[in-house]
């Protein structure tokens, strides 16, 4: 599976957060790196989307959609702005 980037889940993020998010900055809870969501490493094609830090590969977010309901795990994010 190719590693993509946050652009690929721009629609999903917009749907979940109710706003354009690819230009938002996330702070990695593992290494403290600030990065645009568009530039994060994203894997899709499994049961959901996994968003990883481009610096340390730590998991920032996991988004899983089942029957139109999306579960969002943001435990790897120390901040989002």
């Amino acid at each position: 599976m190719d590693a993509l980037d946050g652009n690929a889940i721009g629609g999903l993020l917009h749907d979940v957060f109710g706003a354009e998010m690819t230009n938002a900055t996330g702070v990695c809870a593992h290494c403290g790196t600030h990065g645009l969501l568009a530039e994060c490493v994203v894997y899709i094609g499994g049961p959901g989307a996994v968003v990883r830090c481009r610096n340390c590969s730590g998991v920032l977010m996991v988004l899983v959609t089942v029957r139109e309901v999306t579960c969002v795990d943001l435990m790897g994010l120390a901040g989002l702005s």
Partner: protein
Amino acid sequence: MARAALRRRLTWRTGTVIATGAETPRTRTIELDVPDWEGHRAGQHVDVRLTAEDGYRAERAYSIASAPGEPVAITVERLDDGEVSPYLVDELREGDELELRGPIGGYFVWGPEDGGPLLLVAGGSGVVPLRAMLRHRHRTGSEIPARLLYSSRSLDDVIYRAELDACEVVYTLTRERPPAWTGYARRVDVDLLREVAWPAEENPLAFVCGPTSFVEAAAAGLVELGYPPARVKTERFGATGGQ
């Protein structure tokens, strides 16, 4: 107003195909009429959703190929083992409906107010959002210098060739060359970029779009040449990621 626009919910809606046209043997441009389309920015994409009779759904992201102010158009490359692209390229006809949501994205976008000089680096169908930027630049009469470096397997695989030939474009053909081809014939790396890219001193703005490995190599090359990472915008796609 801007805030209200930003907070707009992203909903699935139905567009109607108003025209389709082959770009290459493997790619087709599909122009859509989307009621109440609020307009898009050059570089944005839409998500397209297909629903099978049994309810199974497949969703892909496709870059918008048209400039702001033009009807929404996507250019789709046919992937032989794809779930979505064979239908869009082979089956979809004028008058058919297509479910989509968008416009999506606020990072990989360009307008004349963002300045330049503009360096666009495309791998294969990664040229689609960059074509929207070039059209936007042309339609707004912008005099910001723009140069496209386009890596393609062969000349026959070049999308929008007639249109791009009127722009400042440098092709590199990685698999097959016509006889007497005098242009580049190698992969995009730092050495090729050194010859083609605007010097970093001119404070260029770069957009790189293509398959993941292509984008990584090109973006790393530009940073090595002194481009600040924040001036190198990237968008990656893969076989399942659409585009």
